[in-house]
């Protein structure tokens, strides 16, 4: 039983590490897109996906560290990403984020 548990534990650990590596590679590729562009919408989308990857990374690290404290972080990233991306999109579309009321 104990052996089984140990195997599972190391299996989880290795899987997590592999996943982290995968996410990290994807992060770096996304970083290339964010830096290179060529246009700003490209960067915006890249930033959005970087955020999602960060959520994944935070989740994976939470597994690795065996803690539940990071669940807030994951949810927060989700909300902020949404807000941020909407703001960016609105900015790219209209040039402003908060429109003034009609005069």
């Amino acid at each position, binding site marked *: 039983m104990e052996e089984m548990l140990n195997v599972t534990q190391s299996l989880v650990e290795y899987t997590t590490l592999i996943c982290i590596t995968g996410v990290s590679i994807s992060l770096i590729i996304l*970083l290339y897109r964010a830096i290179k562009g060529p246009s700003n919408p490209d960067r915006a989308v890249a930033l959005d996906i970087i955020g999602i990857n960060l959520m994944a990374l935070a989740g994976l690290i939470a597994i690795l560290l065996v803690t539940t404290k990071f669940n807030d972080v994951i949810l927060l990233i989700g909300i902020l990403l949404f807000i941020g991306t909407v703001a*960016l999109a609105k900015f790219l579309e209209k040039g402003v984020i908060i429109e003034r009321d009609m005069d």
Partner: protein
Amino acid sequence: MIWAVLLPFIMAMFIPFVDKWRERIHTGFFVTIIPILIFIYFARFLGTGFEPLTRSYSWIPSLDINMVFHLDGLSLLFVLLISGIGALVAFYSIYYLDKSEQLGHFYVYFLLFMGSMLGVVLSDNVFVLYSFWEFTSLSSFLLIGFWNFKKESRYGALKSMLITVFGGLSLLGALVFMTVLTDTTSIQEMISQKQLILNSEYFPLILALLLLGAFTKSAQFPFHIWLPDAMEAPTPVSAYLHSATMVKAGIYLVARYSPMLSSSDWFFIIVSSVGIVTLCWGSYMAVRQVDLKGILAFSTISQLGMIMAMLGFGTKVAVFAAVFHILNHATFKGSLFMVAGIVDHETGTRDIRKLGGLMTYLPITATLAIFGTFSMAGVPLPFLNGFYSKELFFDASLHLEDIANAGFIGVLKTALPYLAVFGSIFTFVYSMYFFFGTFRGKANLSELPKKPHEAPVGMLVSPIILVLGVILIGLFPGMVNEPFIAHAASAVKGLAVSKEVYFWHGFLYPPLIMSITVLVFGTVLYLSRKQWAPVYRAIPGVLSMNKVYDGLVDRLETYSSRVTKAYMNGSIGRYVRLVLAAILIVTFAFMALTGGFTVDLSNVAPLSLPEIFVAITMVIAAVSTILTNNRITAILILGVVGYGLSMLFVLFRAPDLALTQLIVETVTVALFLLVFYHLPKLRKKEEAASTRFLNLVISIGFGAMMTMVAISAHSSKFFESISSYFLENSYKLGGGDNVVNVILVDFRGLDTLFEIVVLGIAAMAIYGLIKLPGKKEDQ
């Protein structure tokens, strides 16, 4: 005695009230009373049996600064001059200044000056002396600039202020040195400990600073330039300040300290050579002047040089002659200034080229002038006091037995009599020029602005009294000798000095031969004045100390504005560069000097794969932020750095920090985007390659420095951190599991409070910036 010094100051406070009645009674009458009272008070001390006396009044006892007044022969001579001539000048000014002038201002300045001058000569405490000394500079500044609507007045006032205050500050330096060395603030006690100062290694510095103060105040070469420009003051001021009192403050200082300093050879060398050069230069330049007061100004410079030279000789005869000449010069020069004022007042001009033949129009003034000028020239007549002091001067210059013969001193000793005669010849020339140019010759009334007529009686009273003084001292030199001058000379020399003054010593008396030489050569030079006038085009030609002064002031302004502009160019980039470079240099130097850089790897945690990944991502993003030239790209990539940082917080098990960092990062990016529209296009700044290289060096250096500091800080832990206390007590004392939050609101709640305040202030400031209307020109 303190009341004698304070009386002018107290009266100065009442002048504005008295000034209201000026239509009925001239303000000057009230002012005249004060010096008369002071004169009477001090005249009581005169007499052969005079003994020095000291009065002490507390001021700042804890610093040993007290109002200590010491009245000895020298102070007595000066207070009588100050109060006596002060009374005469105040009386003269009643007739000289019209009621339409700002009489209130004039007399307030005048009384301030008189009080501070009395303070200078009576103070025994060096700091009180210095306070009054600066007060004379200040009130003299105000008096010179009395007609402040004139540009020349303002220029003259500023010039005299700069030069005398420069000297005053160096005097303060000398006084502080001496106070520290002798541990007393009393002049008399300093003199009694003179060996301590003479043997000190700072003695050359003390001597230089003290003499600098005295020379600037007493208009010695090359600091004489302020005196001719101070002639823009009203004539009573010139008569009082610039002939009798203030310019003698430097003389007084040298005389006061000469019991201490005169045992040094350097004192002899500096004081007598500066004095004799001033004598020659002043009298030479006086011949060239065309303004009556200009002649008198250079004459004053030259006579002060003569007194200074005699103090420098330091022999008994010389010291006696010096104090005697202080008295004589005050009498005849005061009267001559008043004569110049009368001529100006009655003809409307002081230009000697326009004047001439005034003898028949101003007979009394001419009579006064003849006594004054002949006394100044030292003409051998038995009723002129100037002759006695001049003869004593020649005598002193011939008898310098006390002085060693070696080296430069020997040369100086040989040259002194010749230089004395040389200077005196020119003294004779300008004296004759002053008198004959103004009162003799052809009168050309058409060129004069006013038709000349004799001055009112009131205006003549003061010069008549002064000329009476000239004649009485001339006739009976013994009268002032024993009861008065001898005490002053003793105070300067530090031992009993008395000298009988005779008019006649026989034909073969060398000073008489020198006087006659002066007379003969002076007459010849005066008559052939027109022929040798071109000499002035060669010497001094275009050379002038005024040019040096003007150039110095100009350069100082130009260069200091250049220096300021060199670093204060308004570019934030430059200021940041300077600040960072300064921090860099100081930190590196400190680390290098103290060997503060330590590396200790014993306490280092292992690196994990995710940390490396996040770090690499952040580095790439940060570097590409620098390299991009599109602002929105920069903002977005900066976002990557921020998110990377929050991921690091996650990795280092700081969920609260990670949450906050995420929100702040998002808000910051949003804010950037908000103001993005209003921001200028991000362009590559056109900067010189050297500046960009410098920027690179500084930023890399700064990064390296911070890294080094961080490594050193981590490597040198001297004691345990207190975090264990928080971990243990968070639940027990704070009632919370979340240690970070318990610290924020419970253990260290005050910090949180003020960070909330900071946010509130920032919010209000932003609101204000947006909503409040700016100035018109900004819109």
